[in-house]
């Protein structure tokens, strides 16, 4: 029966998401098998979970009475260090991502440079900041410098990828127009490419500033400076009221960042 006739007989059914029934049922069966296997392999120590439940309640209760005061010195120093790392790493990372992004754009870079820059981007995007931080801590010693270099490296991968995609979609007629005036490579970049990608570059930099701050809160766990070390200590000492205070400060700063970056983006576009 056609769908029309079925509908007239009062037996209308909505269209399935995936047209091909074999693929649809295959996916369902595959997913169900995977879920069974996965859930079977998850080992849970229920006794330990039950024991920790009261601690979980303690943690939730800590949010109603966060303790900003008793570890005030550590918190202030950690937050300031996180903020300085965020700012410097974003500036350095964005500055370095511009040449990498130009090199990774298929329409303006020759192929050896293209592959080299794509390689840098892939490596930097694949590994989490914290893994890179471990290596840089070994190389540069403990402290905010290792953290700053880590965040700058991660920023390069993120910014250069999005910048390269933006350059690949730019309006080529403007580039031709500038070239037709006899402009050399630098002048073409400066007057045809740069004005087209600038609003997005500023928007992305603001977004990355926000991400770098959030990341700077964790790389302290492996000794790369910032608020992470303080947070880690407070959690492992079960001082949940201090942890709650730090988390609330992080949330507040991220909110502030988002609010101001939406303003800046509106102003540049």
């Amino acid at each position, binding site marked *: 029966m056609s769908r029309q006739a079925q509908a007239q007989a009062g037996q209308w059914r909505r269209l399935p998401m995936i047209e091909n029934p074999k693929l649809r049922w295959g996916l369902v069966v595959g997913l169900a098998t995977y879920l069974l296997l996965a859930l079977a392999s*998850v080992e*849970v120590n229920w006794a330990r*979970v039950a024991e*920790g439940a009261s601690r979980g309640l303690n943690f939730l209760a800590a949010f109603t009475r966060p303790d900003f005061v008793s570890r005030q010195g550590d918190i202030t120093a950690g937050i300031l*260090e996180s*903020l300085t790392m965020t700012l410097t790493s974003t500036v350095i990372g964005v500055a370095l991502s511009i040449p990498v992004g130009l090199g990774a754009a298929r329409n303006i870079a020759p192929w050896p440079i293209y592959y080299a820059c794509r390689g840098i981007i892939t490596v930097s995007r694949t590994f989490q900041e914290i893994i890179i931080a471990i290596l840089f801590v070994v190389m540069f010693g403990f402290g*905010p410098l290792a953290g700053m270099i880590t965040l700058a490296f991660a920023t390069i991968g993120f910014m250069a990828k999005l910048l390269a995609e933006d350059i690949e979609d730019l309006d080529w007629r403007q580039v031709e127009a500038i070239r037709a005036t006899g402009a050399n490579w630098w002048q073409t970049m400066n007057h045809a490419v740069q004005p087209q990608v600038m609003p997005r570059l500023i928007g992305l930099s603001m977004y990355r500033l926000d991400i770098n701050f959030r990341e700077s809160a964790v790389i302290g766990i492996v000794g790369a400076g910032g608020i992470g070390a303080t*947070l880690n200590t407070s959690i492992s000492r079960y001082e949940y009221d201090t942890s709650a205070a730090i988390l609330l400060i992080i949330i507040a700063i991220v909110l502030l960042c988002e609010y101001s970056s939406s303003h800046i983006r509106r102003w540049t576009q």
Partner: protein
Amino acid sequence: MPLVTTPQGTPTWRLRTTRTQWLQYLGWLAGACLFLLCWKAISDNTMWVFVEDAGRQGSDLISRMLPPQWAYAYRLWKPMWDTLNIATLGTLLGIAMAFPVAFLAARNTTPHPLVRSAALMIIVSSRSINSLIWAMLLVTILGPGVLAGIIAIALRSIGFIGKLLYEAIEEIHPTPVEAISATGAGRLQVMSYGVLPQIMPAFAGISVYRWDINIRESTVLGLVGAGGIGLQLNAAINSLAWSQVSVIFVMIFVTVLASEWISARVRHAII
């Protein structure tokens, strides 16, 4: 576009007025000062002796990592499976929690503005806190293991999926919704037949995208004890077995590239 008249009386074009030009210089100066101040703070907290031999340390590290101890790889299949499970089950749990939150947070489907701000608050807190911090907390509460990792990934995913999904819900076309309500459908029927079909492609795309990010994040959760390949990584680093660390890095690299490829293919097929 200001015109400036030269002493000879010929008008010349300039991009900016003198005032905006000066303001721009001042802005750059303030930015540079702030940057230098931050740099100073960092450099005061740095042991420059260690930095000076960073090159030697780096080449030493690479020489210890090479050649990778490939025989170690066979012990990594179970942790890798755990990592995939943390990412996938965490994403599924995150989706299950993010779905209602997104409907409560979208302006056109929320029951009440107060509920909306509460839902937005959930989304913001979940987004601001890295999954590694969630994992640290959950390890102290639930004990180390895969379960803490799954819940950490789920809690972090709520914010991401919730935010993108509620934006997609706010952008739906109102006509199908009106058509369904005109037939006398109830609130849930309107959701199911008017709203849901419109957001389904966006929803599937967002979920697959988040799954790909979660694979990447779940590789490190073990550093704080939340299961997966990160546990092996932590153990190898602590015992300075750098030739094992390089095997783990290669495995992470391949897994992340594969998941990125799958997610890109799926998103391409959906959209």
